[in-house]
Every structure is written in structure tokens, then in C-alpha cells.
């Protein structure tokens, strides 16, 4: 088939195809591809053009261009009528997505991640301790000898006389310091257990994050600064905090940090016991007895530690009023939490 015949043939097939093109973009695109696409019919003409005698090249070149313009302008017309018509895509977009679930991240994870990222920014690295531990790591090494009244503060699950489910993440401090020399700047999140009846407010397990910083010349003033920074990042820069003396056997001085929650509703009165202040975390300067347990020289080093309960923070932040919801796995509950 000669080139001119070929050109003629393409023109006639196009004209017939064109008539059947409906007013929608899809068809238009198909026709466009058939003729003007990279593998379209028009492109099959160029190799033929190469074989044409030199003096006729411009004549055929023009014919090919004319045809190309003809096809393009016709399709353009069609395109514009399609665009102007209202039903460009005949789909009811209000139909639901075909997803079954978008997925969710548990509120406990969300809180842990947020706290981790706040402290990561100021150089705290994450480490992890075991859930099952010994009396030594959980109590003795933290200056809570047997028969110390402070043991009443934490009801413990035992595996045997010496082995127990950790009651706090503070034992991670001991594990870490035993295996590492200062400087230490760590966070340790994890699951802890208390032998307490399950109720709206308490569960037999919960999660904590422990923080520890040990170096030369660490001061109480730095402890305050660090935790105020955390409160500002977590609760917003307008947050009001206060520190008040407390007691933990493994820190001296010990403190608790409260944030001002306000007294705007009945539930504010309930959760703040009418004071407007809400206890957020416990902290203090590492007690020299703890340093003795891990063979750090307390004349040379000082440090601070803090610990906070994740569930409590999650419940405050999201307004969850029953701790059991966190462990039930109700899809209607979970699907609301996303990063």
C-alpha cells in the first residue's frame, strides 16, 4: 500500500470511528490513542515517509500533518462538548468507599509515641525492660527492702518468692545502669502489673514510661525544667504546672508534678478532687541507695528519674471514663483513634 493510500485509509477509518465516539472522555481518549498516541496509527506513517523520494517528501509531509490536524481538531471539538456537558463522569460519588476499615492505632500507642517523640528531641533514647522480674530489680535495688511500708503502695503479683510481675518500669533503670556507665539518658516504656481488682478506674495492668538521666552535676532545677518542657509540649504552651514534695523510696528529693486542669465542669471537680490541679507524674533525684545498687559513685554523679502512667494520660486526653474500654477491643472504640 502506497503512502497516499495509507493516508486515505487512516482518514476514512478515523471518520467512521469518529461518528461512533460518544460524548464521554473515555471513548475520546481511546480514539485519540488509536490515532495520535505513541503507538497510534499516525506514527506508522513516518517510517513510510522516510522511504519517499526526496522531492516528494514535503508534499507527503504536509498531507500527514493535515490529517493529524484534522484528527486533533475533530477530537478537540468532541472534547469540548464533552467537557461542557454536565455528566462528565456518570458515577454517584456519594456511594460509600469499598474499604471495610481504615485501620487504627491504639490510644495507648498514640500516647507512648507522643511522649517518646517529645523526649527523643531532647536526647532521651528508648530502652526496654522485662515484664517478669525479680524482687531485687523491682524493689530491693530501688531502696524498697522487704517489709518497707512503701511496699503497701504497690500490690504485687508473684510467680514465686523472688520472681514477680513488675509493678513499675523503674526496674528498667536498674537493668540499664547495671550494664552501662554514665552518662545515661533513657526512657523506658512498658507494661506493668498491680494486683488490684478491675473497675472503672483501675485495671490489673497498665503502661508506664520511666525516664532517667544520670551524669555529672545533674540538678533538681534541671529535673523541673525537663518536665516543664514536657508539659508544655504535651498539654500546650499555656499549661500551668506545679511541683510538690512526695515520697518514693528510689528518689530523694521526690516530687509530683501537677498540671492545672481547671474547674469548669463537674467532672473537673471529681478528677481534681476540687483543687483544679491534676497529678501527672512522679519524679525525683535518684536516691544514693539506688546508685549504690548499680555501683555508680554518688559523689561523682547525680541524676533524676520520672515516671508516668499512660492510661491515666490517655483517659484525660481523650476523655475516656472507663479504663476497661482500653482492653476490650471494641471496634467502635478503636476506630476513632488514628495518628
Amino acid at each position, binding site marked *: 500500500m502506497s503512502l497516499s493510500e495509507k493516508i486515505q485509509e487512516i482518514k476514512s477509518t478515523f471518520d467512521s470511528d469518529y461518528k461512533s465516539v460518544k460524548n464521554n472522555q473515555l471513548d475520546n481518549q481511546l480514539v485519540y490513542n488509536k490515532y495520535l498516541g505513541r503507538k497510534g496509527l499516525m506514527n506508522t506513517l513516518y517510517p513510510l515517509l522516510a522511504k519517499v523520494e526526496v522531492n516528494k517528501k514535503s508534499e507527503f509531509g504536509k498531507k500527514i500533518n493535515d490529517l493529524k490536524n484534522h484528527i486533533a481538531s475533530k477530537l478537540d471539538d468532541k472534547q469540548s462538548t464533552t467537557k461542557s456537558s454536565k455528566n462528565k463522569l456518570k458515577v454517584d460519588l456519594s456511594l460509600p468507599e469499598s474499604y471495610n476499615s481504615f485501620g487504627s492505632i491504639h490510644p495507648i500507642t498514640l500516647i507512648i509515641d507522643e511522649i517518646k517523640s517529645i523526649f527523643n528531641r531532647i536526647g532521651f533514647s528508648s530502652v526496654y525492660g522485662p515484664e517478669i522480674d525479680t524482687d531485687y530489680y523491682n524493689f530491693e535495688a530501688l531502696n524498697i527492702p522487704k517489709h518497707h511500708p512503701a511496699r503497701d503502695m504497690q500490690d504485687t503479683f508473684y510467680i514465686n518468692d523472688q520472681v514477680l510481675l513488675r509493678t513499675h518500669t523503674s526496674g528498667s533503670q536498674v537493668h540499664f545502669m547495671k550494664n552501662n556507665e554514665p552518662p545515661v*539518658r533513657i526512657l523506658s516504656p512498658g507494661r506493668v502489673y498491680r494486683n488490684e481488682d478491675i473497675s472503672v478506674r483501675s485495671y490489673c495492668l497498665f503502661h508506664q514510661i520511666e525516664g532517667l538521666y544520670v551524669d555529672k552535676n545533674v540538678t533538681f532545677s534541671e529535673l523541673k525544667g525537663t518536665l516543664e518542657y514536657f508539659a508544655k509540649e504535651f498539654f500546650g504552651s499555656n499549661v500551668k504546672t506545679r511541683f510538690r514534695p512526695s515520697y518514693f523510696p528510689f528518689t530523694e*528529693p521526690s516530687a509530683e508534678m501537677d498540671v492545672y486542669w481547671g474547674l469548669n465542669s463537674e467532672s473537673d471537680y471529681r478528677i481534681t478532687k476540687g483543687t483544679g490541679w491534676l497529678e501527672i507524674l512522679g519524679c525525683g*533525684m535518684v536516691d544514693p541507695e539506688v546508685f549504690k545498687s548499680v555501683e555508680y559513685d554518688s559523689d561523682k554523679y547525680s541524676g533524676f528519674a520520672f515516671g508516668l502512667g499512660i492510661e491515666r494520660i490517655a483517659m484525660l486526653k481523650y476523655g475516656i471514663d472507663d479504663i476497661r474500654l482500653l482492653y476490650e477491643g471494641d471496634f467502635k472504640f478503636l476506630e476513632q483513634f488514628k495518628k
Partner: protein
Amino acid sequence: MKISRNWLNSYIESDRTNSELVDCFTQLGLECNYHLINSLDSNIVVGKVVECVKHPDADRLKVCQVDISSESNLTIICGAPNVKENILVPIAKIGSHISDFEIKKTKIRGIYSYGMICSEKELGLGENHDGIMILDNNLEVGQKLASELEIKEDSIFDFDITPNRGDCFSHLGIARELSIIENLKIKKEKFDFKKNELDILDYVDVTIDDYDLCPRYACRLIKNVEVKESPLWLKKSLAAIGQKSVNNIVDLANYIMFDLGQPLHTFDYDKLNGNKIEVRRAYENEKIICLNNDENKLTSDDIVIADNSGPVAIAGVIGGLESQVTSKTTNILLESAVFNEINIRKTSKKYDYAKEASKRFERGIDYENVIYVMDKFTYLLLSDCKKAEISSNYIDKCKNKSNKLIEFDVSKCNSFLGTSLGSNEIKSIFNSLDIKFSDKKNHFKCSIPSYRNDLEREVDLFEEVARVFGYDSIESNMNFKFSINSLIRDENLIEDKLRTILSNNGFNEHYSNSLYNKKETTLSNENAIRLMNPLSRDMEYLRNSLSPGILKALSFNEKRESEFLKYYEIGSINVYDKKKYNLSNERRILSLGYLGDKIKSWSGTKPFNLFNIKGDISMIFHNLGFNKISYKVDTIDNNCNFKISIILNGQNIGEIKEINDTVKNYYDISSSVIVCNIDLDEVNVFYDKLKISYNKTISYPSINRDIAILVPHSITHDDIINVIRKSSTKILRDVKLFDIYDDKNFDKNTKSMGYSLKFQSPERTLKSSEVDKEIKLVLDNLLTKLNAKQR
């Protein structure tokens, strides 16, 4: 612990409001809140019963005429057994309020009653409700009862005392803290009283076996006491802090304990056998019947007070029944002592008597206060029992003890706290704490008051300085500095990444209770760890698999009409391992759970099967950066319909299981359930070593060829792929399965598999003939190795 503000006023007065005090105490580390106790309604007055006759229509009621010093007497109907003529009684007039109800004019069996005669309990002055309260004859009729009895309104502070502050378990202790707040000294009276010519040594001799068990033991003999109802002031004081009244002796001992923090014990002297008292360890299996009628078998950890016949009290914990003070008692032996904290704690724990007394002994007693306490008791007793005779001397056995000395360095304190306190500020803080000191160039030698058992080291004084100076007054240092040497890699980074991958792909994260019952531990065949003291049988074991937790959640949701769910949990499992220091091999696990085998939507129902799950797992590993993950059918256990191992780099790292009906019945699930467990510790080993390697992309065109082959059913896709790959290694870029076809026309044991092969060279454009050769080679090999024929 409850503290009455009126009571506190006897030591130190403060102008601050209650809520200011709450703030001040909280800032000192004594958390508390308060509530108010109202005085009596002013419409409650003193009345005199001038006439008392039987109610004509009721056997038990009496009609009384009561004089309240107004124009006419009131007619009041009263049912109390002790109402009679010529007694003074409290009258609640019409319109007055008793707790929450209002007294109104009421008709009782045809006669109007114009008020009520009240019992002690109704007035909140005590526990007695057996009859009406009979008042002292010297009160003035018609006057307000509140002013006649000096009943004032009061504020009760409820303190949450931390275990280190044993010294704060009394009004005196709280007053000392208030003196820091107010910068005032507290008033501490001296108590003098008449003594009789009684030498206690004629009556009793005390021996202490071991001064470590009992550092100090004092006692005094008081003869001729009258055991009776407590005087009103005493009842009122105890009622204000929530304590019941028993009798004047018991109440007074209690009062002194709440007042001064020293528990006292009183013995009926005449019930003691012989005149020797011994403070010693109990003998093994020695018995005592206690005040609460329990018979206890003692051990050598217990400290007892014993007479000739055996123990008469468990020291510091509970008294013996035999020697207790009763209404018949006339001579008492008053004990004021200090016992070893740890022994008391062990004993009170063991017998579960965490009573007010043992709580104080456990936290440490003021050694110096023992005699003062006994004196105050005696003095107050004498004001109630005027005929009582007091021994001229007392027994006081003690080990010599001097106040603790602690060295304190001002600059060390400042560098520890980050403060810049001058030595004068430190001095005034020590003064307010009653810490005596001598100083030499900012270096102090401090003598600690005997009641502060918690202060032992220099750092404890730093804490006191910070506390009194005020935590909030210490400036916060926000210039963070840290050494790069403290930075370490997060070992659980993979978990964060997995959560993102899974939650972005429609999985919901779950946290489950990790305490299981025995049945739930059988989903894994690894040895679960059992708790010695579980909350209940349902939570007796620590989880050895995450699947039961997920199954419970799926069951919960299926009951709430969920049809298809994808759940996951990342957490620890613990498996018994006696070689480990904590008896446990703890592993981090990712567990997936799928509920349902189809996804329904308006656009139709799509099946959800094993290959979707395979897709999820490959997706997870692909996103972690692993290219190749393989699967192997495993032998089933009695929990599942099928079980598949997941293999990464030749290592078995997890399993996929379809839960069978028996297990589903247990969890009450009816839809199909597939679970998948992946050992993250194993994956982490490979994850750590992962490196991304880059292959140059090829710009030469590729050639695709499709082949269709008939192969026996026993031949797997992997077998075919292996043969194809081995047949053509150089230019074969990719092989994709595009079709599996099973036709009745085929031989029974054969299936048709269609593959698309992509050929490409990194160096040049391939010729069709080259590819033809490769395809022939592939087909030949498939035929010889797998008996696969081309269709």
C-alpha cells in the same frame, strides 16, 4: 488520717482559710483535703422533763411535758426507755434540723408532739442510740445546747501521709508542719499531777530481752480507776475524727495516739499473772487469744508482752483478751513503748491487723516522747477519775540513744538542687524544722529531732531544704545539655514501623489483658507462667500467645454485628524457662487476627481467603524491606484446621492458623477466624542487617512471551518458577503467573498454568530469535523435570 482544726488550734493557730491551708500543706508534701462539721442547730436547746406519763394509746410511748424556759412547756412524745421526770435532755424544737430532716409538729396516736428529745447519735455527739441523751444537771434550761456543751463548728482535714512521714500521724505532728508554714513555735504544755505513795517496783518488774526489738519500754501503775462512759469532750473529739467511743480508758489511749502519735496500751493489772513483765520474741507456736477473739499461733518474728503464764499482748499490734480493760477493771498498767518497725510490720501483715497502732509503730515512733505521752494520759485520766492513784514512779527501760548527727554542706546542697541559697536562708529553714546545728564556713553539723526517723543522710536534708524553701521557688533550668555518649539505638523501632504499616492497611490495633486462664494458655504449646496469687482463676497465667486476646476481641465484636475485621496486637509473651534469672523467656510478638471470610459491600461480596492473608503478610515484609518470604504447610495441632509456617531467610519466624470449631466454640465465635503470629525478636535479627541494594534500571526494550502448560496437580507454582528461572538465567527478567485453569477435559490430575515471561538485556535490544530459543529451553526443561506439557 483525719485532723480536726479545733484540736490543732490547741497547738498552733493559723489565720489561713481551710483551702489556703490545703495548699500550704500540699506544698510541704502533705496532701490533704477538708470538709466542714457544723455545730448544732441553734433550735436545739436544753430542756427539763417536768412530767412524764404513759401515752394513753401506746404502751411504749410516753407523753412528756418539757420546760424550755419559755412561756409554756412543750408536749413531746418520746419512745426512749430512759426518759423520766426531772432530767435535763436535748430538745430539738420545731423547725430545727437533725442531720437532713426537719422537726415538725406531728400527731402520734392522737396526741400532738411539739419537738423531739434526742439521742447522742442523733446529735452526732457519739454512738449511743439506746436512749435519749441525759445532760448534766448544771446546764441551764432553755439555753442553746451548742453553747452549753461548747460544741463548735470544725474543719476536718484528711491527710494522705506518705510512708516516710511517721512523725505526721498525729495532731502534734501536723502542728509541727503548720509551725513551718506560720513560722511560729507550737505550744506544748507540761503536765503535772499528784502522785501517790506507790512504788511501781512493788507491783511489776519489766525485763527486755533484746533492745533491738524494743528500744524503749515504759509503764505506770494507776490504781482505783473507774471504767465508765467517756466524758463528752473526749467523745466529741474522737467523733470529729471518725473514731468510736468505747470507754473512758480505751478512748483516752486512743485520743493520746491521735494527739501525740504514740500508741498506748492498757492492761488490767489484776489479770496479769505474777509481777514480772517480759518483752521478748514469741516462742514458735506459742498461742494467744486476742481482743478480737482470734486465737493466734505465734512465731519468733512476733514480739510479745508476756507475764508468768505467757503472752498477754502482741506488742504494738493487738492486745490479749484476758488482760483487756473491762468495766470491772480497777487497776491498770499503762504501757508506752517503742518497738522494732520491721517486726511490727511483719506481724501486722501476717495477722492482717493493719490498725492505727501498728501503722504508727511501723513508721517509727518518737523515742523521746514516750514519757511525755504517759504523763498527758495520766493527767487527763485524773481529771475524769478523781480518785485514781498514781504510782510515784514509773518504769522506763531503754537503750541510750542520742540524736542523729548529719553533716551538711551548703555549696553541695546548692549544686544538687540548682539553687543559690545563702547560709542564713539554710539556717532559718533548719530552725523552722527544729534542727539544731553548729556551723563552720558553710559546713553544718546538724542534730536531728528524735521524731524525724526519716532523716538520715545529707541528701535527706537537701530534700528538707527544698521542701521548706518550696519546690516551686526553685528555678527551672531549661538549658538542656546532654552527652552524645548517652544516645542509643531504639531496639523496638521495627514495632513503630509495623504499627504504621498495619494501621495504614486497615488493621486495628488492640491491647489485651495479658493474664489468661488455664484454657486460654492451651492455644500455644509453650509452657505458660503461673501466678502464685492471681486475682481470680480467670487470670492465673501470663500469656504465652497473643492469639487468645485477639480471639476475645473478635468475639466481642462479632456479637456486636461486626462481619469482617482485621486486628493486630504487638506485645510480649512469656514462656517458662528455668534457666533464666526471672524464669522466663520473654519474646516480642506481632499477632494478626481475621474475622470472617468475605467482605461485603454494596458493590458485591468478595471472598477473603488465605491468599489475601498471604498478600497482607508479604505486604508487611515488603514494607519492612524484605524481598522474599516463603511459606510451608505445617502439621496441624488440635486448635486449627490448617497451619502454615512463615519462613524468612530460611528461618521459621511465624505461623498462620485457621482456628477450628472447638476453639471457636470456646471463644463463642461463629465466623471463620485466621490468626497469624510473627516472632519479632527473630525478624529483628534480620531487620538489623537489612541493606537496600540498587540495580540499575534497564532502558533496552523487553520482550514478553506467554506460555501455558499442563502440569500434574502435585506440582507447585514454586516448582515451576524454579525450573523456569534455572532454565534461563541471563536475560529472563521476570516471571508472572497469569492464570490457573482446571478443565474437566483435562486429565484428572492435571491443571493448566499460564505464565508470562519477560526478557530483557541490560546491554542491548534482544532479538526475537534469542527469546524463542530461551522459551524452547524453558519448555523442554519443564517437560523433562516436571512432566509439564505445553498446551
